């Protein structure tokens, strides 16, 4: 693989819960993304897993600058994104696009499929006739019939809408796609088709993906590398196979346990129950534990020891290509 397409350094975003209109005051702060460093290599599929509210969608939106970061830098193909104005950002928007979870709502319901797909092209001054041709090309590429493009999104099924959304995202020939749970709201049989399409497109068009999902099986299937997020922080990063085969961080072990149960032939309900328990536990610990110092997972961790409560672990290099944010993996020379 070649170099990094995206380099994220010290990215931070917190959302303020405010009350009042004119005399606005902050009643609560949620840190969605907390001091994240991340490299996305050109041409790779980087999977991102984590529970709900772990900040994985926010991370992707920050990279696309759909949300403004509080702190940190984002470098895209050698260009610094943070601080660019709307105008300066425009040419870069061609290079990075997004596919959403809900396929129907990601298309404008009052515009035909053709208009939906052409919109990005027209924004960049492509002549109407040319945009039309490109639209037909794109729809064919995602496996749809362009002669039906005068129809409206609701006349298509969920899977077809997701194909349209992918076609629209590819309209500007981007290099990077942020896939925000692209198959989570689809049928299992359709999921497989969409994943196959995405993989096929990724290889043919040499795309780079950031693939966010809470479905661990899918991420394992599709992603080259996987990063595990919990409450806005990266806890583990490594080759997908390695992360899944031998999870290192206690949270990852616990989190993957929700899936391993199924693989051992256990019942679905058991896994679902476990996932729910974990989520509950995390929520409780989230409210009790002081978020300022120490590991974010310390409150619920079975293997915690003294430093976990006082010092926040950075990402330690565990093996060659594995990074774990846990004091258990602190290299000996850094211990003093």
């Amino acid at each position: 693989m070649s170099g990094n397409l995206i380099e994220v350094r010290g990215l931070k975003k917190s959302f303020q819960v405010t009350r009042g209109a004119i005399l606005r005051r902050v009643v609560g702060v949620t840190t969605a993304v907390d001091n994240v460093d991340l490299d996305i290599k050109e041409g790779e599929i980087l999977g991102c897993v984590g529970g709900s509210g772990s900040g994985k969608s926010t991370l992707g939106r920050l990279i696309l600058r759909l949300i403004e970061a509080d702190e940190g830098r984002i470098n895209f193909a050698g260009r610094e994104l943070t601080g660019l104005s709307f105008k300066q950002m425009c040419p870069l928007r061609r290079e990075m696009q997004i596919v959403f979870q809900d396929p129907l709502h990601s298309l404008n319901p009052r515009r035909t499929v053709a208009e939906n797909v052409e919109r990005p092209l027209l924004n960049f001054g492509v002549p109407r006739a040319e945009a039309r041709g490109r639209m037909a090309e794109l729809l064919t590429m995602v496996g749809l019939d362009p002669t039906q493009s005068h129809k409206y999104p609701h006349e298509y099924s969920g899977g077809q809408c997701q194909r349209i959304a992918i076609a629209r995202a590819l309209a500007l020939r981007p290099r990077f796609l942020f896939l925000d749970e692209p198959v989570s709201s689809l049928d299992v049989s359709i999921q497989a088709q969409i994943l196959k399409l995405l993989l096929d497109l990724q290889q043919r068009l040499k795309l780079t993906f950031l693939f966010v999902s809470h479905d661990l099986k899918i991420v394992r299937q599709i992603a080259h590398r996987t990063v595990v997020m919990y409450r806005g922080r990266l806890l583990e990063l490594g080759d997908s196979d390695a992360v899944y085969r031998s999870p290192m961080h206690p949270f990852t072990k616990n989190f993957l346990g929700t899936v391993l149960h199924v693989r051992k032939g256990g019942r679905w309900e058991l896994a679902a129950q476990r996932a729910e328990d974990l989520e509950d536990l995390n929520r409780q610990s989230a409210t009790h534990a002081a978020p300022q110092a120490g590991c974010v997972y310390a409150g619920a961790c079975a293997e915690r020891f003294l430093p976990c409560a006082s010092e926040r672990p950075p990402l330690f290099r565990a093996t060659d290509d594995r990074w774990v944010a846990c004091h258990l993996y602190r290299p000996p020379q850094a211990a003093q």
Partner: protein
Amino acid sequence: MVDGPVTGKVASSRRRARRRTNLYFVWHGVGSDPVARGAAFLILVLLLCAILAPVIAPFDPNAAHNALRLQPPGTPGHPLGVDHQGRDILSRLLHGSGMTLLAGVLPVVLGAVISIPLGLVGAWYPRLGEIVMRLMDIVFAFPMALLAIMLAAFMGPGLLNMILALVVTLVPYNTRVVYAAATQERQLAYIEAARAAATPDLKILFVEMLPNVAAASVVYSCTIIGAVVITAAGLSFLGLGVQPPIAEWGIMTSEGRSYLVNAPHISALPGIAITVLVLAFNLVGDALRDSLDPQTRLRLVRHRPHLFG
């Protein structure tokens, strides 16, 4: 193509490459519903009456036939009777239709033209939106009729001032409808997709969002026309709107109030006319909503294929 499944449903449906325009659906959507068709026809008739009143009205609307004062409907030569000043009611109704439509419809249209951008922009910029909506709340605190009376009294009587007063009263209502629809709409992913494709804010608002929000406003406007006709009539009754010798349905209704026992038709006939007008606009508004929405209009057209080839 390596991967080309799930086109079955699309490919098997009948080839209909031509894209139907909104106008097509409005025409067929309204046309295919007998009730809406009747209502649209009524509005058309009213418009024709308003235009052709000088030609088709049997008498001058202000000509007095003193011998026939208070005669009920069915009097020879005066099919709808004669009012307390001996004026032919049919002629007055015909002449009044234009003024009534003007006083009822124009403020609503102008109100919508102002409140749609106001609501959209307010929903897009939350801070500005809060300020706008709180200002609207202040206007809301006054009852609609009272505010209109206050404004009309302040600006002085006359048709133009009345219309202006009604516009000011209507803007908060319509803005709230648009604002509510737009705040919901802006959460949806297609707006974020538009931003990801570098669409400027104003284009997102008026190209992407407007068609999704306008329907709510159109329907609301159609339903409120009735209330506006009545408020306009009330203003005219108080001497703040259209001035009395001019035929207008609201004035006609109020003028007959002293004769309700002896000659109820003087008030009742223009009253019925207003009711019919309001009803017609409400029904057309409903049909308009259904035929403007891509999700419902296909059902509308498909289920009644016998009505058009």
